[in-house]
């Protein structure tokens, strides 16, 4: 209280972008102000959300968030929205700063991502009104910053050393207008031994083009040196995983000739272009007179290249996720849907009709109910669709997951499933459709969730194998830092990047992945692409096991999707065209002609390909994976467009809810278990209808509307 925090720098209109449905949402950007403060404890960088700021202006205390004692820090009484914003507040001692990334300002506004010594990586601060450069200039008065020779966006903070600071820092002028130029640091660090001197020698600083070689040497030479501020040797943590997870042991000499591999020379990476999302006229043009999709492969190519217009998703996803067969006509789809509605309610009744008495003797079901109950309350609650207490959509999420337990009782409910379901439900806005599409999506990833976790282990080791070829340098670094098990990718793989991207982005990513293009297991290549983008940060900060884990956890929601997809496809093309690509990798990517796949291995492989893919399986694409050029439909040959109208609507709406429940139970039972709401059509499909069912419990459309409006 006595000490007035001295504000050395302040700038408003600095935003944190959070995970909401789309970027147009006004809640997507939280406005705030960034400060550089001189506090009694040291120099701090802070960012505070604006609402919070206004409310706190009465208090001269800056350190409300971190240093108040328990009771004062009580946030329960504060209103929820403010609380939700406040959680993004940032505050750290600049001596903990390890490095930061600053985007090229010519791409719109600049943003800065601060990375601390322990690997903590804060969300990007977007300077909508400029000021990032000014902040960094101010910062240069207190810490010594140099630009990474390998990644122009990355800046490294040298350990605090007054001597170095006194060297005319301003000469470096990192953040003047000529900031595009590399600024090299030739300062020798006398504190460290021979190896470091070797590294600091002009090899690294001048021969940028040979950085790969020197970096590799550096890794070898410098492996024991990381985590400066922790006294305990990393080795304890380090022993982890390598030998503890059965099936996770990864031999560094796995492939014959480890040394050779470090010299892999992949073909140059081709430039990849992404396309526009599949839009309505184009989509309609694919249907013939019977409402059958005429050129499935071409359609999938378009979806792979640009995704799907959000307005079309609920229909297109039904094909991608096996709700409808790709070769079905509209008549068949009407029947398919009807059957699926019946089937769903039959399964839902199975658990709905288990009495409390029964459940006492049905521990397994009771436990699953408890798990689902807890996780539903913790899934995407910041998203509009699930926000607020007593949001009815939470019940739908719950019901679908419970019904899935009946559908796949052997698997049951495993944490992560609610993450898979949530974006699908948001798109479908309909319980039955969402259930079946979820079941289709699970079909692709159910091995992630199985008891022995073998599916996860296999995939993590496949990333390792791929990286040995794709980026031996990074691979060697990770191995040398106890991360060769790729455990830090666990969340990525388990829920297919669900928590790593913003909500609207994950929908795009998933529809791209669901096309099974350009190869099998493309999600593993996406992992390689993300890691490649983080390579400089990991290597130049000399991150060890814990820092890598933390950094990778923390970059969630700041990974650029389209750039990553371009990069991933580029990596795939390099691997595909690499003459010496080992058979085992061809197999992972589905590049072997079917005949060459040994039976046992093809089974392992197929479990990641997803059974919902078209019968012309990815394996057969070996001969001609046509991904180089976007095969966009020119103008979407309009023929047949009109004939398709109504395809998407047929058999939807209230008619489906009639008769279906009756098929499984009497109207009374159905009512008594509360089945009138939410069941068949969503609000969007309510204009369907017509062919009424013939039995039992009808569901009021009012209820349906209530749920989905």
């Amino acid at each position: 209280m006595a000490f007035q925090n001295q504000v050395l720098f302040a700038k408003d209109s600095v935003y944190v972008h959070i995970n909401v449905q789309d970027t147009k949402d006004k809640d997507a950007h939280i406005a705030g102000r960034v400060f550089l403060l001189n506090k009694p404890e040291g120099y701090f960088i802070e960012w505070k959300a604006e609402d919070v700021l206004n409310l706190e202006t009465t208090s001269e205390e800056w350190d409300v968030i971190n240093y108040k004692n328990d009771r004062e820090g009580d946030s329960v009484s504060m209103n929820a929205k403010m609380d939700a914003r406040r959680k993004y507040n940032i505050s750290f001692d600049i001596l903990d700063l390890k490095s930061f990334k600053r985007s090229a300002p010519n791409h719109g506004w600049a943003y800065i991502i601060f990375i601390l010594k322990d690997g903590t990586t804060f969300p990007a601060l977007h300077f909508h009104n400029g000021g990032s450069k000014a902040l960094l200039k101010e910062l240069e008065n207190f810490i010594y910053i140099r630009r990474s020779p390998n990644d122009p966006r990355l800046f490294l903070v040298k350990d605090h050393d007054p001597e170095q600071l006194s060297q005319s820092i301003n000469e470096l002028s990192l953040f003047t207008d000529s900031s595009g130029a590399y600024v090299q640091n030739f300062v020798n660090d006398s504190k460290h031994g021979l190896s470091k001197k070797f590294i600091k020698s002009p090899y690294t600083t001048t021969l940028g083009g040979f950085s790969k070689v020197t970096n590799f040497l550096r890794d070898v030479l410098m492996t024991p040196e990381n985590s400066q501020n922790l006294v305990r040797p990393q080795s304890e943590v380090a022993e982890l995983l390598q030998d503890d997870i059965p099936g996770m042991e990864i031999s560094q000499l796995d492939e014959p000739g480890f040394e050779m591999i470090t010299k892999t020379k992949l073909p140059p990476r081709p430039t990849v272009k992404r396309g526009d999302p599949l839009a309505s006229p184009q989509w309609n043009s694919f249907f013939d007179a019977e409402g059958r999709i005429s050129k499935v492969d071409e359609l999938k190519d378009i979806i792979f290249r640009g995704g799907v217009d959000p307005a079309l998703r609920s229909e297109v996803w039904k094909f991608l996720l096996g709700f409808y067969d790709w070769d079905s006509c509209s008549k068949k789809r009407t029947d398919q849907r009807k059957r699926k509605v019946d089937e769903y309610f039959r399964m839902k009744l199975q658990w709905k009709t288990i009495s409390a008495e029964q459940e006492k003797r049905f521990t397994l079901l009771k436990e699953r109910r408890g798990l689902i109950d807890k996780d539903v309350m913790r899934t995407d609650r910041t998203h509009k669709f699930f926000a607020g207490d007593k949001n009815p959509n939470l019940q739908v999420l719950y019901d679908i997951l419970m019904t899935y337990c009946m559908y796949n009782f052997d698997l049951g409910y495993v944490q992560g499933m609610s993450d898979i379901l949530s974006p699908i439900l948001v798109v479908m806005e309909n319980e039955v459709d969402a259930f079946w599409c979820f079941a289709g999506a699970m079909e692709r990833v159910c091995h992630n969730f199985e008891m022995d976790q073998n599916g996860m282990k296999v995939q993590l080791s496949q990333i390792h194998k791929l990286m040995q070829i794709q980026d031996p340098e990074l691979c060697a670094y990770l191995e040398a830092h106890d991360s060769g098990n790729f455990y830090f990718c666990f969340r990525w793989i388990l829920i297919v990047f669900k928590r790593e991207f913003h909500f609207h982005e994950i929908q795009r990513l998933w529809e791209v992945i669901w096309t099974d293009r350009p190869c099998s297991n493309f999600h593993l290549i996406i992992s390689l692409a993300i890691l490649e983008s983080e390579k400089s940060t990991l290597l130049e900060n000399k991150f060890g096991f814990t820092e890598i884990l933390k950094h990778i956890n923390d970059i969630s929601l700041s990974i650029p999707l389209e750039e990553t997809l371009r990069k991933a496809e580029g990596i795939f093309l390099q691997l595909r065209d690499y003459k010496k690509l080992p058979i085992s990798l061809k197999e992972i990517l589905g590049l072997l002609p079917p005949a060459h796949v040994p039976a046992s291995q093809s089974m392992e492989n197929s479990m990641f390909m997803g059974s919902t893919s078209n019968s012309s399986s990815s394996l057969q694409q070996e001969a001609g994976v046509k991904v180089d050029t976007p095969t966009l439909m020119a103008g979407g040959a309009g023929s047949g467009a009109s004939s398709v109208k109504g395809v998407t609507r047929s058999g939807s709406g209230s008619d489906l809810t009639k008769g279906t429940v009756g098929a499984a139970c009497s109207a009374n039972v159905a009512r008594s278990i509360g089945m009138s709401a939410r069941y068949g059509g969503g609000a969007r499909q309510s204009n369907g209808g017509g062919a009424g069912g013939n039995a039992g419990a009808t569901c009021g459309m009012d209820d349906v509307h209530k749920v989905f409006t």
Partner: protein
Amino acid sequence: MSGRSKLLKVVLLGDGGVGKSSLMNRFVSNKFDAQSYHTIGVEFLNKEVTVNGENFTMQIWDTAGQERFKSLRTPFYRGADICMLTFAVNDRKSFENLPMWKREFLYYADIQDGAPFPFIIVGNKCDMPNREISEEMAQSWCSRNANAPYFETSAKDATNVQLAFISAVSRMREMEDQLEVKPVQTNSVDLSKKQKPLNSGCCS
């Protein structure tokens, strides 16, 4: 930051949904997020603390509680200095699972049979009205388990969270001191107490 602090590895264990991540976040950044996700995989946070004049960096590991992820969780137990066994006072099952968590930890952390280890027991969500586990029940379990310190916390309203974590460090230091003195001394009573109940079963 001093750069001289000793690293303490703290492992938070307990059933899914008892509030492990919330406890960690409350302790490290004094924040509570009612809309937070359930943890997938493993996360950790560091926190600098000073306890009785000594500086420590507490590295708190938070894992997914579901049985399914056991094989990917247990490797992180090794090298732990402190284990916090957590349950929610409004969730009987989570309390009944404490012995299971304790066993799992001792096994995978590779703690020698009978060796004393600093466990701290935390009953979270004490702000909730529908309590299923009384303080007496919890205390009774603790007394049968090497007299592990017990704290009733609320990550939501911040009750006792700092206290529990800081006490965990004190507890660890006390046990270290006792070990150094060798069990010939007067506190041998304490040690024998600690050794016996390691395998004692669950309450009821």
